[in-house]
């Protein structure tokens, strides 16, 4: 275990160096957060019934913006570079499971940029933005604790999908196809374009069965209280179930991939 944790820690530290990117991302995400809320406010002003309250959907948008980079928008850049250049040979000379190693890398890759943006984003959304436009604190301590757990599970879920995409590189080398498909699905079905509760009723069971809901949507709704404390364990079960399924698939594919591995270059 310590080996994997050491990899998470090392990559986390390496990624914290990208402060300028975080600052740039922060401004962009605050701006788009305000735009999304403006559009939603206009919709809510024209509508009488809504499946989620305006306050909760506003919080949903801010939490989505704050944890935006949890979206597995592509395979692990480091692993892709390693496979392209052949440095991947070193990964196989470590006494670690290859999938586990890539998963550990992905955990750090998904969390470090999110942490850099999340804290200032929370400050802005809670304190700077005018009343009614901001993020309200969770309704109870229990909701906050459950959100923390659910957020952790979202990291694992996103990392599992990221490493699955990385594993796919063993078959394609320059695999832009699968990541593009996953990124589109994750954005659309993850609630980043339209909050999932606002999709038509018939689509809800499908959307909430897919893994993408577990990354931004479900944790955010636990935070705002849109999902009750009593129902929150089901959210965590959904996230962990998908994480496990994707992890098993990833490990199986890795063991197949290693056998047919061709290392690029001399």
């Amino acid at each position, binding site marked *: 275990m310590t080996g994997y944790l050491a990899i998470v*820690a090392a990559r986390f530290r390496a990624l914290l160096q990208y402060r300028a990117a975080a600052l740039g991302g922060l401004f962009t995400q605050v701006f788009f957060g305000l735009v999304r809320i403006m559009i939603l406010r206009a919709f809510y002003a024209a509508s009488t019934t809504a499946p989620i309250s305006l306050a909760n959907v506003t919080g949903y948008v801010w939490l989505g913006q704050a944890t935006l980079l949890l979206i597995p928008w592509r395979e692990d850049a480091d692993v892709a570079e390693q496979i392209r250049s052949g*440095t991947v040979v070193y990964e196989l000379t*470590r006494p670690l499971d290859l999938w586990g190693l890539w998963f550990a890398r992905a955990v750090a890759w998904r969390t470090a940029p999110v942490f850099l943006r999340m804290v200032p984003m929370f400050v802005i959304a809670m304190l700077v933005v005018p009343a009614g436009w901001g993020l309200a604190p969770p309704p109870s301590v229990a909701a906050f604790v459950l959100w923390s757990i659910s957020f952790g599970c979202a990291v694992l879920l996103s990392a599992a999908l990221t490493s699955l995409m990385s594993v796919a590189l063993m078959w394609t080398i320059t695999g832009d196809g699968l990541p593009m498909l996953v990124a589109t699905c994750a954005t659309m079905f993850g609630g980043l374009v339209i909050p999932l509760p606002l999709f038509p009723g018939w689509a809800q069971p499908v959307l909430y069965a897919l893994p993408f809901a577990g990354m931004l949507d479900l944790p955010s709704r636990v935070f705002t209280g849109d999902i009750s404390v009593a129902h929150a364990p089901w959210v965590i079960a959904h996230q962990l179930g998908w994480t496990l399924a994707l992890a098993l698939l990833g490990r199986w594919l890795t063991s197949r991939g290693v056998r047919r591995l061709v*290392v690029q270059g*001399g």
Partner: protein
Amino acid sequence: MQIVVEDLAKTFRVAERTPGLAGAVRGLVRRKHREVAALAGVSFSLAAGELVGYIGPNGAGKSTTIKILAGILVPDGGRVEVAGRVPWKERIEHVRRIGVVFGQRTQLWWDLPVVESLDMLRHIYKVPAAQFRTQRDELIELLDLGKLLATPVRQLSLGQRMRADLAASLVHAPAILFLDEPTIGLDAVSKLAVRGFVKKLNRERGVTVILTTHDMDDIEALCDRVIVIGDGTILSDGTLADLRNRVTRERWLTIDLGDSGEVSDPDATVIRRDGDRVCLAFDPEVVTPAELIRRVTSRHVVRDLFVEHPPIETVIARLYQHDRQR
């Protein structure tokens, strides 16, 4: 025997397509593959504590062999045992006991200081803290890394990086070290540093080393035994002296002339003339060095002379040529 390789074979499938647009379109529908045999029946064995040079032209199968021995690639045929284990079957247990350096690639974390990479490797290999400290301090001293520890790897020169990479491969004190072109691209001073370190490691700690290189000075400075591979098969395996004798008995007599006459002898050929310096190649079984020297000194004013073996590059180049002509 610590390392046993028997009849090792590995074939790669290389995708091919006819050049141009038509070829690209055809490639979309039907791919043509060509089988390339990287290894076609390689056998050798190594005792613990040996330092072996593994050489051959580009594409001969050197790196493929190293990668199979390191547990990275799975061969198509043959048997391999390293310290009693089949590398690709028990990869995780196997790699705990080996160190690997690929000269063209770094195993250090690009964005982090060297010391953090070493520390991460300590956790990965589960080296006890006290043992790690002694080991690390020793490596730092031997490889002169003290001043580089806090520097991010991306800011190191190639020579510095290679020294740090060697340290990284030895954090867990492996009994076997695979070095794939460890001196590639290094300047003379860095090469000497790497050679000195590898020699010390082998002599003082008894670490078994397999080294691939294109630099024959590496071989001459380090290796008692040389395995030459070409087109996936072993061309020669033995000491440097054996290799020389197998390929050519030839020796070179270099003379600094005091006059400017033409040097010629029925039993020797002039292979080079550079001002007053003349180099003659001869076969010592046809004419002894003493006899040749007597003949030359009787006919010319000679300021200085020496007899040497042809450089190992020449020997190896001839071996490759023989192989091609076969």
